[in-house]
């Protein structure tokens, strides 16, 4: 018993002290430094146009108008790109549910642009993990250039140049994937006209 009572005090004191250090001081210190050094990123990388918040550069938005580029299919509920409830579809790779969903997305792409034909870029017809993916591949953007140009009365070349302007390569040439930010591109399209 003697050894047990000897250990109770350090157990209580260490838990209290480490709670104070890791549960309060640490997150507060990170917040203070982050807010001072990286205020834009720490507060959600918001896109502000004319003093008004237009969304976040990191969170995708739903688009199905032919004049906009469309992002990755989103499985959030109750509506797509619900930023308050991130979710993936969790469909198995061989499940009929996935095959049906992919077919529906292909049909939607063809309905918006009857001239569209396969092959379809994979990221444009499969759901993202978060349901909030802000980016598409350059191939998925190129696939949509004709539709967007026609809907806006722009030349395909004009739209293609804008896509190129908003295309980011792999980080340091190695990491991740080349990508196009859909919301930023669509805002730029609107600003063009």
């Amino acid at each position, binding site marked *: 018993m003697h*050894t*047990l009572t*000897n250990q109770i*005090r*350090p157990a209580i*004191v*260490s*838990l209290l002290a*480490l709670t104070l250090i*890791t549960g*309060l001081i*640490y997150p507060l*210190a*990170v917040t203070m430094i*982050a*807010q001072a*050094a*990286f205020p834009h990123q*720490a507060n*959600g990388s*918001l896109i502000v146009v004319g003093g*008004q*918040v237009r969304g*976040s*550069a*990191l*969170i995708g938005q739903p*688009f199905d108008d032919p004049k906009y580029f469309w992002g990755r299919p989103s499985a959030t509920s*109750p509506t*797509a790109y619900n*930023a*308050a*409830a*991130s979710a*993936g*579809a*969790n469909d198995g*790779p*061989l499940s009929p549910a996935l095959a049906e969903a992919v*077919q529906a997305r*292909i049909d939607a792409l063809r309905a918006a642009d009857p001239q569209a034909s396969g092959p379809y870029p*994979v*990221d444009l017809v*499969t759901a993202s*993990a978060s*349901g*909030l993916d802000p*980016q*598409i*591949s*350059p*191939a998925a953007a*190129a696939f949509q250039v004709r539709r967007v140009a026609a809907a806006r009365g722009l030349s395909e070349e004009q739209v293609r140049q804008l896509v190129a302007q908003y295309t980011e390569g*792999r980080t340091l040439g*190695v*990491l*991740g*994937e*080349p990508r196009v930010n859909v*919301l930023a591109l669509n805002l730029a399209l609107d600003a063009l006209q």
Partner: protein
Amino acid sequence: MTANGWLQIVVYMVVLLALSMPLGRYMARVYAGRATFLAFVERPLYRLFGEGASAEQGWRQYALAMLLFSGLGMLVVYALQRLQAALPLNPAGLAAVAPDSAFNTAASFATNTNWQGYSGEATMSYLSQMLGLSVQNFVSAASGMAVVAALIRGIARRTTATIGNFWVDLTRTTLYILLPLSLLLALALVSQGVVQTFGPYVDAPMLQATTGVDGGPVTAQVLPMGPAASQVAIKQLGTNGGGFFNVNSAHPFENPTPLSNFLELLAILLIPAALCTTFGALVGDARQGRALLAAMLIVFVPLLVVGVAQEQAGTPQLAAQGVDLAASDAQPGGNMEGKELRFGVVGSAMWAAATTAASNGSVNSMHDSYTPLGGLVPMFLMLLGEVIFGGVGSGLYGMLAFAIIAVFIAGLMVGRTPEYLGKKIEAFEMKMAALVILIPCAVVLGGAALAVATPWGRGALYDPGVGYTSIYNPGAHGFSEVLYAFASMGNNNGSAFAGLGANNPFYNVVGGLVMLIARFWLMLPVLAVAGSLAAKKAVPVGPGTLPTHTPLFVALLIGVVIIVGVLAFVPALALGPIVES
């Protein structure tokens, strides 16, 4: 697999190994008491602990201290959840968590598992998150690292009764290792776009309105905020894995860029890899640490490559629908279902391998949507007992138990008393090492068997009298999900397959007990071995000594790990995933 895929794997492994070595040597200085620049914080703490509380302890005292600390921590997490409705920092007015769920969560976070049976942000108040769960992210990791430090001392010391002091190891691990690394990583992540604010959620108008379920227009998005970066950093470094947002590290606010993905991926394996170097430094023979690291890498890297290659290949079903699966500089190709574009197939499949190898459990893609063979990689890594890197501390002490078994088997072959690093391995050490290896198998298989054998585990799909559904998918797939859940809890991993309703009294209570047994019933035999080895004198190296730093020993060790893992789980796998495919 693409050239860029190979390049990303090579860059990752090179940077991981390059960083783990200096960190491992630094951690050896911390556990040897030679790093002292934070003494001004440490000394007052030790005084508060009481007289003699920071003196050397025998293994029983060390174990008692560890159990008391973990028990008290668990009690606090439980109490915070039960009382959160009456406590401050609960702006959403969340009610008290149900007793069974609160028990499960307390056990989960105190055991470094971070299985999340509850439904995310809708359950925990800010206070429960900060003072309960976040604190356990640090201290459960620190407890695991303390125990492995004690085991290493037991191996390195000669004819002594003590193996260090738990309170000192706990404090030093937190202050010298986990806090500085977390601070650096958190700030790097914020620079990439991980949110870190106590401000309110942001309403942003959407460029194009969409139609809501009620038929009316939805014109704005609610952007969630919070102090995410500080929690994401320790969740990765401490092999915890519990996410800040619902989809964990797939969420753009938790993991916004390829660079943040690379840093978080490094953080998953950094400390488990570095501990191998620490081991070599503390036993005075760097080759011993390199041998263990080599064994881990030889199992890990091929599985990593297989996982990436399988996901990159995608499925013929998608290709048949007219989808372009070919990778190029214009698109990632492959199986992109449930993956984020910025990570692509490579950054996602590498993560899946690392997070299950390290008992981390965080995800940046949806494992349920992986190709059959790509999805087998995470399952296989988990069932190997979380010793291929494994949890911080727990992975290395598990691997050292396998090393003891390996020298014992080698000793049997040549008829000599086995020894490891100059210490005779006798019946007591073997019994304890066998416990360390067999208990996770027993609780995983026992838990899964109990679940499918009782109405409360099978749920309303099979027994309509039960008030809840737990198994949603009948047949082999349902069994796979039960097996995955218990494999995850019984190896303190915490990752989950969707499709199993686990937030009910049966899974909460049985799962909580499984996590507690798998954590503490392993730590006790590990500390007993530490105490027993510390008391022994060193035997000189002779011609019959099996060197434990050679390729031969590495091969033997890998063989033992794989044979035990495969033998224990093949019958159960045959009933689940194998029938399914």
